[in-house]
């Protein structure tokens, strides 16, 4: 009976998790991932023995023999597995929340942009982002300006000409029109 209940609980957690992940909102995405990891934890819990009132550890042989003659002892391993899984999913959920937050501050939107953008934009079926091409290479400009000016980590770079040292003008000059 209790195992049937557990099976239903695991199933509904997975189903609602999958439903939430398939929605467009990012908060729902996080909640869906969390629900799914709870589903797995419950499944691991059910993979142990669903019994009560029996010890997992025996001090002497005769007590053990007596116990298994009647019934099985409790199994402590799933709890350890669940604990590990909880810690891992906790860490990952924290990371996803930070990532979504960062993305929110960048794009000012909670939605994953996808369905409304033409799918074959610029020949890339998997790029659903609404960021322009220059955004994609932001980090390059960033590196050129910020890092390769300094010869301190690795010596040997030729110095920038003074006209291009100014970061703002360099960024302006880089407004290349993408074909």
């Amino acid at each position, binding site marked *: 009976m209790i*195992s049937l209940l557990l099976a239903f609980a695991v199933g509904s957690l997975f189903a609602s998790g999958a439903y939430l*992940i398939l929605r467009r909102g990012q908060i729902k*995405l996080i909640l869906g991932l969390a629900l*799914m*990891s709870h589903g*797995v934890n419950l*499944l*691991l819990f*059910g*993979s*142990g*023995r669903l019994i009560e009132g029996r010890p997992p*550890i*025996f*001090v*002497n042989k005769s007590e*053990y023999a007596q116990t*298994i003659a009647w019934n*099985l002892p409790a*199994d402590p391993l*799933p709890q350890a*597995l669940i604990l*590990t*899984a909880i810690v*891992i999913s906790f*860490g*990952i959920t924290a990371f996803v929340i930070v*990532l*979504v937050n*960062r*993305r929110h501050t*960048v*794009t000012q939107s909670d939605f994953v942009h996808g369905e409304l953008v033409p799918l074959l934009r610029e020949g*890339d*079926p*998997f*790029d659903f*982002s609404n960021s322009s*091409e220059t955004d*994609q*290479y*932001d*980090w*390059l400009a960033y*590196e*050129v*300006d*910020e890092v390769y000016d300094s010869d301190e*980590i*690795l*010596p*040997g*770079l*030729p110095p*920038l000409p003074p006209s*291009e040292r100014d970061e703002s003008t360099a960024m302006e*000059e880089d407004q*290349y029109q*993408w*074909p």
Partner: protein
Amino acid sequence: MALSANLLAVPAAGPLLTAALILLFARWGGRTLIRHQIALTTLALCVNLVVAVLLFRATAVQGERFVLQLGAWSAPFGITVYADGLSATLLLLTALVSLAVYPFAVATIDYHRARMGFHPLYLFLLTGVNGAFLAGDLFNLYVFFEVLLMASFVLLTVGAQPAQTNSGIRYVVLNLLASTVFLVAAGIAYGTLGTLNMAQIAERLPLASPAVRTVFAGLLMVGFGSKAAIFPLFFWLPASYHTPPPAVTALFGGLLTKVGVYTLFRSFTLFFPELLLSWQPTLLTIAGATMLVGALGALAQPGIRRVLSFHIISHVGFMLMGLAVALSGNNLAIGFGLGAAIIYLCHHMIIKTALIMAGGAVELHMGSDRLASIGGLVSRQPFLAFLFFMAAISLAGVPPFSGFVSKLSLLQITLDTRHWVVSGVSLFASLLTMLNMMRLWRESFWGDYKRPSRIPSRILQSGLRQQLMLTPVAVLVLLSLALGIWGEPAFRLSMQVAQQALDRQAYIEAVSPSTQFSTRPANGLVALSGTDGMNSPQVVAGFATPTLFISQ
């Protein structure tokens, strides 16, 4: 020289401890401290390479198997660390690839990313990858998967540019789903077989009911297959690999999907080799579709790194094809397919890393990797152009290089087992690879010199940086050439590794999960074979923990 099994701890623990040490001064790292981080990381990578070479010599060449029971707890109770030829081959390649990408990363990663912990993350990723190759039980495999995933999440998104966060979310979510599926498989294994130790699972799985076997195999196939980017599950890869700095892409392209491929090899050869025959049509269909989709998708991509990362998928299809015919063979020996897949894996890890690094150098020089807006680099960077060309024809499978040997051997076994369609598909995919490589070469190196960014790129003009970026590429290309020239000894070695991996009885005996408690499992297994529910067969599991306390 006899190696101690304790050496097995080094590939996972060494990078982990070094990374922990580096973390002490990562966050507030001034430039001197970052130089110390670089020195420590290089040291850890070198130690890792030495250990990997020693292990490779002992296992793949001399045919030994190493088992380390952590804390001397015997097999099903403690943590088992296991290495045979297959693990050691992958450890060696991982060590090579990570050591080769590192100078490139040092030369190209900016100060801000270094300050945010790029160097310790590099080592954490290595810890996860090495640990996954060495894990002897399913749950530790899951833990190491998570370690490498976590490190890869951060490496992918560090810097937090819009494109990176966009792709980061897709990468994170799809990989998390794959991990969840894998964890479900582990839970079902524990619930039905009462064990998580891989040797014990291999021992008990043939006695379990077919339903359990099918569900377990299917879940593992989905979980590992999605890590390996096989056909319907590859979408996370092309969505994300082009966004981080090129050094990170090179590392990911060399290592990450290969962990999935390794676990597929390991689980199919160890847990359910019979499915290699009964599922062969499915596996071959997936392999063919993976090859074709990877190559065709690459053809549609507009940038160098996008083309190269789409190509990874195509290559995974080749490896899966080798696995699918691992137990078949008419004139050729059983295991020829797996041997061919292993040598293909070696070739792929080496040359794909080299190619992504060379492409990354082009991109850093041009300020963009869009093929439409770059060109004519051959006049400015002839050495880079030469290296890129060599790597590209090796990937396409032109004779003196390793690509030829590996593709030829895969073709030999598929023709020998009369799988005409899939061998035709693989030839067509190779042709498309050639086409793609020609396209990359023509667009970025030939024609008039044009460069979209007007910020002068000085990254390839500095002598030291150029050496740091191009020397590892040259080394990897030379390795690929050596693998092609000494193709026969290399192939003999990989056949030996494949035979060792297919010998599941020897695996079980090496780990020997139940020798000390031989009285109980025999009874338990009778009960096990008749049940497939979630709660009933814990007969076996029941003996696990308590018996230990009696025996003391």
